[in-house]
């Protein structure tokens, strides 16, 4: 039972890293600026999931706070970038 849980955690971590790779390919390639902002938003969420999975692997509560911080900063950065795309400046 323990081995099955470990194996599943390995699979989950590998697929999250794969998702991070896909997002960064879109971030580097994206034809327009809004594609890059969307890819960055998804990249934040995938990194939050990776932090959660590491916390489950090591059984520690510190990673939960890390995931919470990543979610907060990701939201603020996405809103700021979208506002910048719309107006061309942040503080008017």
């Amino acid at each position, binding site marked *: 039972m*323990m081995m099955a849980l470990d194996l599943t955690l390995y699979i989950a971590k590998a697929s999250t890293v794969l998702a991070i790779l896909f997002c960064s*390919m879109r971030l580097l390639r994206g034809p327009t600026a*809004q594609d890059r902002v969307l890819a960055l938003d*998804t990249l934040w969420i995938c990194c939050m999931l990776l932090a959660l999975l590491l916390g489950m692997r090591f059984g520690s509560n510190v990673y939960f706070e890390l995931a919470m911080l990543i979610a907060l900063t990701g939201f603020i950065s996405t809103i700021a970038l979208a506002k910048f795309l719309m107006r061309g400046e942040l503080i008017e």
Partner: protein
Amino acid sequence: MTTAADLPAWLVIPVILFLLIGSLLTVVGALGLLRLPNFMQRIHGPAITITLGAGSILIASMLLFSGLESRPVVHELLITLFVFMTAPMAAMMIMRAAVYRNIRNRKKES
């Protein structure tokens, strides 16, 4: 506090199921972001990652930590609530910016 080795099977099996579903949906959403042809179709891919993928992995984490600490642990609900509240707002801001930029570019061309 119990270790992960002596968790009961009725707790480990739902954790494994939720982890598999969550990781599969995360990869599918990111693949949609990479492969779909234009921006308005591409914005549908990450919605799967943010809602279903993140939700399943958060439920799995909640179950596993409840088993490890032998008491109900619900503080992952904070992240779930926050992500589910803010993801539509972020998507709406990006979409609105994209629509404005498309209109501006069309005006500049004509």
